């Protein structure tokens, strides 16, 4: 049986440490709408690998520092 992963992220924290970058600023930098950033931050949407890399690139960190996944149902 395929194990279920729950993806979480540190975007809010990273935005705070990036001089309190707004969701709109981040959205413009990665080329998506502010609603998409809100949905990703709230865990309601899992971005594609490309968008995940672009978000990590904006903060200058590795993708693993932005997104984490936890094994569920173990």
């Amino acid at each position, binding site marked *: 049986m395929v194990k279920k992963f729950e993806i979480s992220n540190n975007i809010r924290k990273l935005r705070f440490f990036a001089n309190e970058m707004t969701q*709109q600023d981040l*959205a*413009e930098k990665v080329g*998506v*709408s502010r*609603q*998409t950033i809100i949905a990703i931050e*709230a865990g*309601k949407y899992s*971005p594609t690998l490309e968008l995940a890399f672009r978000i990590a690139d904006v903060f200058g960190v590795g993708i693993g520092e932005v997104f984490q996944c936890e094994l569920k149902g173990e």
Partner: protein
Amino acid sequence: MSYQEKRTLASIFSGILILAAYCIYAFNPTRLAALTPDDLKPWASTMLIFIGIGIVATIVIQIVFHILLSISLAVQTKIRNMESDDKEIERSIQLEMVEDERDRQIELKSQRIGFAIAGIGFVAGLLSLVFNYSPVVMLNILYLSFSAGSILEGFGQLYFYRRGA
């Protein structure tokens, strides 16, 4: 409410409007009395006309919606900053109307709802023939299920925007 949700509401509104107009016109008792039960031609031409009206109405409603949205965004930008110029207003409109991968994913997911409803309608139409109903009933089931599918697709989109894709 986001731009995408407002746009979806506009398309749901146009879908409901056209469906209601079809039902009022096509199932008018005076019109029905003048038709013979198995004459498909008037039904086919009515449906073709309403498909045409539907396409035109959807385009017009979307154009009107985008004009109104642009005006409201321009006013909001001016209220926030009285010294904002045309470029800033244009930028705020472009930022609001961004379409991205999440929109495409939601569109694909909601299209499945539309296809499912249309598919159920097709099967129901075939069943109506099997159970000896008039071909007019089958035609109407097909038309109404396609229309309902497109409206429910819009509601599906709203659901995915609210609850997450």
